[in-house]
């Protein structure tokens, strides 16, 4: 089991080690089937063509889940997610590797809660930022 990260040990400006992922077509289809998100641009080349896209795209909720998993892994099970915000800047595609990263932006106390803000991101294989995000985690 990972060691839970304590609030006191977290430093403002601290970088979270980046992680690479390969969202395979098979896994994305598994996700679409499980969540029943049969949105054509997630799996259909013809719709992607109509939209001027390179191919079927990764569903937005998958990218939010990646950021959440990435941050939870770094936290080692500590903390409770209070908020997550994402801005989808450009699409990511099936079978194209991506990199997830982030850093600590702020530590503070509010209404008796110890809170930490993070900036999070996803980069595509060309190094372009496809998702910009942020999250707030509380430590009770």
């Amino acid at each position, binding site marked *: 089991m990972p060691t839970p990260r304590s609030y006191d040990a977290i430093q403002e400006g601290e970088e979270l080690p980046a992680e690479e992922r390969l969202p395979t077509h098979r896994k994305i289809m598994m996700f679409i089937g499980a969540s029943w998100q049969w949105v054509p641009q997630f799996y259909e080349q013809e719709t992607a063509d109509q939209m001027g896209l390179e191919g079927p795209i990764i569903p937005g909720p998958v990218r939010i889940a990646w950021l959440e998993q990435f941050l939870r892994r770094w936290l080692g099970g500590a903390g409770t997610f209070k908020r*997550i915000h994402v801005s989808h800047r*450009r699409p990511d595609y099936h079978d194209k590797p991506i990199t997830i990263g982030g850093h600590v932006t702020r530590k503070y106390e509010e209404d008796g809660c110890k809170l930490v803000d993070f900036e999070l991101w996803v980069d595509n294989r060309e190094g372009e930022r496809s998702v910009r995000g942020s999250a707030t985690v509380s430590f009770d």
Partner: protein
Amino acid sequence: MSERADPSSDTASDDADSLITPAMQAAIGSEGEPVRVEISREVVRRMAEALDEDNPEILAAIDGDDPHPVVPPYALICMISHMSEMNVPDVPGHGLMAADDWSYTNPVRVGDRITVRPRIADIQERIGGRVGHSLFVHHEWTCTNQDDVEIARVRRTIAHYPNRKPAPGS
């Protein structure tokens, strides 16, 4: 949000015409029928597998004896996302998620019966942006559990573009 669309396909006259129709204007502030979803252990398990979940605590909770384990927030995101978006009259082309903002107020557990109350918060357009004339629909959802306890508030922005031919080289 797509940046592959070819902005050169828009003409000046296209940009001059608002994409927001009277029907769309009337939809702003409207509330949809509540959407009800039960947090199913099997669906959470399948999503965890699709997402290559490797957190031992989450995996143990999903497969453990507790009939109502807490699930990761992404389970809620993934289970209610698509079915909670209200239809907006006259929106052009296909929609792409532009932004999502989730505030979690209480944990979600397997077996929870979630009610999502959706509304159209706002509709805006952008003329002459990087991807041409586009429309942004802001959805808001309030999620409560079977005890009427609020578990999350969500604001989702969907970007709509008129259908386009493939951009060169795509």
